[in-house]
Structure formats: C-alpha cells, structure tokens
C-alpha cells in the first residue's frame, strides 16, 4: 500500500540526524496527538488536552532546545547549516497530526530565535540569557513574535515598501533600558501561552529609516505586559492568539536583538523562514489528507465500485497527489536554500524573501483548493469532523492568510521577478 513516504523529497538534503528525528516525531505525534486531536476544537480556550501534548514534544522530548548552541544546553541547530531542513522535516511530521501544533512549535522554539541564534549573526549574550528558559526545563516553553498591530495588519511584513513606518509600538531608550509601549494582535502562542516575546518596535514613529526598526526581547512576566483572552477562530485551536499590551515595559538595552539597521535586515530573514516553515505545515497536513482520502475512497462505493476506481474521482485524486508531491519537493528545496546561503544568497536578501513568499503562496493556494475538492469528493461525509479532512481544510486556510496573506505575497513576488518600482 502506498504511504506518505512515497511522496518525493530531495533525500540527499536529509542528514542521518534528520531522519532519526523525523522518526521520533512521527512516533510521538501518532501516539500523543492524532488520537485526541478531534477534541482540540472544543479545547481552544483552556488547552487542557492540548497542553500535555506540548509537554511531551517540547519539554520531555526536548524540541524546545533545538535552536540554542550545544554548549548552552541546546541541540545546536540554530548555528548549524542544517537547521532549516531539519526543522522543516520535524514540523512536517507535527503538522501531519495538527498544523496548529506545527506553527505553535515553530514559532515557539525556532522562528523568534532565528534573529539571535542563527549564524552569521548569533547574539551570544542573548542566547546565554534565554537558553535556560528553554533548555533547563521539561516544562513546555514558548516564544512569541509580537509583530501585527491593530492599525496595519500586514503592513509590518511589507518591509520593502513600508519600511516599518506604520509601526505604532514604540521603544524609547531611557538610560540603559528600553521603555516599550504598544498594542499587538494575533501573535502565535499569545493568550497566556508564551514566556518570551520578540517585539517589533520603532524608535522613531513614522520613520522609514531601517535604523529605527527595533526587535526587542521582552519576558512575558514583566510589569506592564498584559495578554488578552484567546480569540475563537475557524480552526487552529492548538495555537492561541490574543491581544498583547505593553505599557511602560522596561527591559535592558542589550535585549535589542542587534541594533540599528541589523534588526531590520535580520527580521527579513525571519520573514523568509516564516514562509518556508509555513510550507511544512501545509505539506504535513496534506500528507495526512492523502492518507484519509485514500482510506475513504477505498471504502466508499459509487457506481458499484470503490470511489477511487471511478475515473472522474480518480482524476481529482490525481490532481491532489500531484500537488502534494510538488509542494513537498518545493518545501524541502526552499529549506535547503535557507541552509545554503553561500549558494542561494542570505535569508534576508530581497531575492530569498520573494522566493520564499512565492513558494508559500503556491503551496497554500494549491492546498486550499485541493482541500475544497477533497471535501467535495467525500460528499455528505466531507463535513464530518470524524473524518478529519475538514479539520485540515479549516486549519490550512489561515496559513494562506498569515504573513501578509496572498496579496502581499503576490506583490513581493512581482516586485522581485518583474522589478516593479512603484508597488
């Protein structure tokens, strides 16, 4: 019988460690997540059933240590030249069970840390400061990328055009402390989950000077930090999102990731990574869709034979399988590009940002359309939550919407490939 492992990926990019890790994650999520995921929608506010799974994956298995240097108790993937492919593989496996869990893990233990733990711009002092939060505990620990604001939505990610000029969250240097004030919306792992925020700020409101863009770390338990209640959403229950308010929050000056100009540059690298890892969420979920569809279309009959043996149904199944195969190849290739800046350019380059956007845009569009068609094939059973396919349909829609959504992805792609100057 065909399995998800029959979908193609550039296997030469996978190290023995990647394969070993992937096997462990697969076993873990099959045991700890897949049997209970159907109840996650009702647990969106409390996370009573979801939190123990995070404890297993992040705390006990130790995924939250991945990005930190080895000598700080981490697994060294941040400074390595294989962190993207390895992370992609692990997140693909997590997302096969639950893509909300995939994004919560990705943001919580990798995305925010890229700016300080990735070569060639490791901020050793901040790594030393925050490593114990992640590495010296078996309790799950999450970080947050506090980026989106009420007034601008995707404007903040639209860095080439807006250059941070719409950022309303301010950072003012008083003595040797940053004083932060502002209001953020929607960050993954907010709503009381995270212990550490990476906060996108401006040191000069309205400025388009990259030097005024600041990325500053803020521990969640500081005075003046308030998190709202989680939002209720169409899906993605394992990822809590809420408002965060910063009111005269004070952190040491050296909690800024790098400094004028550098924060702006390396934040663009975070955008590239965010887009590439989003493909892992899509690819993982779609591989599970393949498994579920395969079983459904083998068991249900139409015109006196299994659904899959009807040419018209098979045509749609072929389209879906084709897209899954291509998404997987593209995703691993994109991750490889992040791991090989010497060949493909740095992750913060306009080229890499545009290409990462293009790949994510492609993967999301294909997956969203394929999932709609999958539900249609399943007919009256397509909307059954017991079939699980509709869960992926609900979950993946927001992957398409985040990081500036489809329109920004289109603009950034067009800007680079067609050298547009006024968009």
């Amino acid at each position, binding site marked *: 019988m065909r399995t998800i492992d029959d979908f193609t990926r550039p296997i030469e990019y996978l190290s023995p460690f990647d394969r070993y890790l992937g096997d462990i994650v697969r076993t873990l999520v099959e045991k700890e997540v897949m049997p209970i995921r*159907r109840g996650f*929608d009702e647990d969106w506010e409390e996370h009573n059933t979801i939190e123990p799974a995070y404890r297993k994956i992040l705390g006990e298995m130790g995924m939250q240590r991945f990005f930190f240097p080895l000598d700080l108790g981490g697994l060294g993937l941040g400074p390595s030249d294989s962190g993207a492919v390895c992370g992609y593989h692990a997140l693909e496996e997590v997302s096969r069970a639950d893509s909300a869990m995939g994004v919560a893990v990705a943001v919580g233990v990798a995305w925010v840390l890229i700016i300080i733990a990735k070569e060639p711009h490791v901020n050793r002092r901040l790594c030393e400061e925050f490593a114990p939060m992640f590495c010296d505990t078996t309790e799950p620990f999450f970080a947050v990328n506090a980026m*989106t604001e009420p*007034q*601008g*939505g*995707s*404007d903040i990610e*639209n860095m080439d*055009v*807006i250059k941070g*000029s*719409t950022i309303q969250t301010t950072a003012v240097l008083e003595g040797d402390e940053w004083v932060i004030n502002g209001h953020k*919306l*929607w960050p993954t792992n907010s709503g009381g989950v995270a212990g550490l925020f990476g906060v996108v700020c401006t040191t000069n409101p309205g400025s388009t000077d990259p030097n005024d863009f600041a990325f500053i770390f803020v521990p969640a338990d500081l005075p003046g930090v308030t998190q709202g209640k989680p*939002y*209720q*959403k*169409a*899906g*993605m229950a394992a990822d809590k*999102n809420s408002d965060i308010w910063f009111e005269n929050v004070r952190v040491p000056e050296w909690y800024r990731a790098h400094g004028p100009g550098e924060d702006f540059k390396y934040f663009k690298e975070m955008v590239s990574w965010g887009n590439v890892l989003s493909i892992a969420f899509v690819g993982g979920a779609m591989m599970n869709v393949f498994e579920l569809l395969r079983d459904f279309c083998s*068991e*249900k*009959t*139409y*015109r*006196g034979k299994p*659904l899959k043996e009807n040419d*018209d*149904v098979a045509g749609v199944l072929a389209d879906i399988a084709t897209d899954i195969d291509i998404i997987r190849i593209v995703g691993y290739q994109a991750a490889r590009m992040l791991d090989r800046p010497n060949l493909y350019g740095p992750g913060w380059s306009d080229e890499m940002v545009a290409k990462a956007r293009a790949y994510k845009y492609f993967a999301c569009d294909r997956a*969203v359309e394929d999932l*709609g*068609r999958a*539900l*249609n*094939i*399943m*007919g*009256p*059973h*397509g*909307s*059954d*939550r*017991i079939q699980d396919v*509709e869960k992926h*349909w*609900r979950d993946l*829609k*927001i992957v*398409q*919407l*985040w990081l*500036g*959504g*489809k*329109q920004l992805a*289109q*603009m950034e792609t067009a800007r680079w490939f067609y050298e547009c100057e006024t968009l």
Partner: protein
Amino acid sequence: MRYQELFPMPVEWIEDVDESMAAAVAGWAEREVSPGRLEHREDYDDFLLPAIRKLLVDIGCQAMPWPEDTGGGGLTTPNAAVTFAVILEQVASADTGIGFLLANTFSLQSTFGIEPHRDDKLLSELAPAFCGGREAVCSLVLPSYGDGSSEKSFYGLGYQVAAAQENGQWVMNAGGARPQCSGATASFFGVAFGLEDGTPAIALVPSDAGGLSAGEPFKKTGLAASINADLAFKDVRVNDSNVVLTGEDRYRELLSWYYMCCSAVCSGAMLASYEILKEWGDTRVIKGKGQVFKENPLVAALMGEIGGRAATSRILTYDLARMLSRPDIYGPAGGQAVYATATAVFKHVSRAVMKSIDNAMELMASAGYATEWNLERYWRDVKTIETYVVPETAALTDMARHYFDLKRL
C-alpha cells in the same frame, strides 16, 4: 428586497406576498438573530432554537403550503418557488444553517403541497403538526455513497434505506442513514428508497415512527442550527399514503426544488458576506498613507470578482425559481432539461459563493478567520452545504447525462 440596487433580481416576478415575507423575515433577523450573535455565536439551545421557533411557528414559514384557514400560508401553486427563494435568501443571510433546515422543509413539502401534486388528505393530516404551536423541521434522506452492501442504487448512488411492501405498508430498514440535516431534531424525514425495480420513491416518515431512532449527534464543519445524527430504521412501517412520490421524474422534480432552495440559501450567505467585506473595505486603511483598503488596485480587482459572483449567483437563483414556478413555459421541474439546469445552477452558485467567501477571507486576513467577525461562519456553512446536498461527481454526471446524452453512466 435588500441589495436590489446593487445585485438586481427580476423584480417583475416578485409579488406582494414575497415582499411581505421578505419584510417579516428581515424583521425576524433583526430581532432574533443579529443582537445575540456576538454573545451566543452558534449556541443551539439558547440562541438558534428560539430563533428557529420564531421563524417557523410565529412567522409561519413551516406552514406555507397549507390553506390559510388552517393557519397556513396558502402557497399552493408553483409560484411558491419564488416566495421560497425570497424567504430562504433572507433567512440564510442571518443564519445559513436555519436557511438550510428551511430548504429541506420547503423541498419536501413541495412534493405534496404544491400543485399539481397537492395532496389535500395528507395536508389535512399534517396540519396539526405544521400549523400548530411547535416547530416541525423536515429533512431529506437521499441516496449516497455506499459501503458495498447497497442492493439498489439510483444512477450509482445507493439508497440508504431499504423498503419492502408488506400488507399495504412499507417496511423500512437501514443501519446508519445520513439525513441532510437535523437527524436528532427533525419532525419528519423524506426518505428515498428504491422500488422493486430500483425506481426512486420518497416516503414521509415521522420521527416518532416505531423502530426509527437517531444516533448521537455528530460534529461537523458548519450548520450549527442542524443537530444532525445518523438514523437507524428497524422495521419502520409507513402507510402507502405516506409515499409522496414515485418515479424518476417526480424524484428529479424534488431535487430541482431542493437545488433551487439551496441556491437561495447560498445566495443569502453571499449577500451577508458581501456586507461584512464592504464594511472592512470601507474602513480599513493600509500602507500608512491613508489609503482606504478598497482603493488598492489589487484589492479592487478581487472585490470586482466577488461582486460579480454575487450578482450572477442571485440572478441565477431567481431565474431557476421562475423556471420552477412556470412549468407551462419551461417544462416540468422533473424533466431532464430543468433538472440539469437546476443542478448546474446549484453547482455554479455554491461554488461561486464558496470562492467569494474564500476571497473575502483572504482580503480580511486574520479578521476573516476570527469568529468575532462572523465571516468564517458563512465559509464553514456554505462548504457544508456544498458537500452535503449532492456528491460533486454525481451532480456533474447528471449534468453530462442530459447535455451530452450519456447512455451508460
């Protein structure tokens, strides 16, 4: 009649009764649904069920084909199709799930309440249930995919319920038959079964019939107003007089009405989604330079597509309703031509509405995904309707059968 200036419909077919029903339903939506939506979201017991009762009983939507002197609406002619479309569009714009319950109810009632199939004896028997003080939702149980055990099928889809004649009654059996809606709460089911030669028939089965039981309600993507559950039939006996139709033409006629009703429900969801996106586009500012969201060319291009789909979906739905209301011009609703058109309209409208809400979510990004903004509810509801009403492959084959004269499928 809202949106008339924006998304026109053929006003020459709209009668006074349609205008008054639209106004009554709009008032119901403003009083019973809109104020509690944010607080109650999709709560069935405390929010949706009271609204369903008001609509079906107090306004009388469940008794439209019954004579006025019994408390009904007196809609006995095929003209009811247009009235149904008007009502369903209004209801669905407030709550798509409630619209879907009503679409099932209207469709089943069309088989015995609308001329030339009006069955006064059955109407009289059922008047206490539909014209009294309790809600009475109807639900269709249609042929579907099989599990390999179905003995009879209708163009490839297996009858979910087996029936055999015994002493002037039909004895029905089934394991887990999937109704279109409200398996746990409906009062009547319109159950499709195959006659001895496989010809389709529909029997009206009350939910309290001996041997009929509903399983545990199951969770689904949307349509919170429908508490659905699979049904078990264990030697359920129904009188021959409860068989409200037999034969392919009559069965197709039921489906033509059902597809029209569901198109109207989708159209209502489309109009509601339009309003949500319109407000967003009018008030959202992007790029920090005071640029109103809708004035961005890329956004405007997508909004143009959404508006166009809304306009065509609405007019197609009313055109189909008109066709059903005038068999003297367009032929019988169960004829191959009208049935193929009904199928095509439903597929076109449901797809167009689904695509438009998908696009609206893309424009509203996270707000489109959050429950608070209401849009995602329509997205889940319409997708559920799109999957439930007819398996896509069966619908497409039905259309091809007529348009291309298929002989073997």
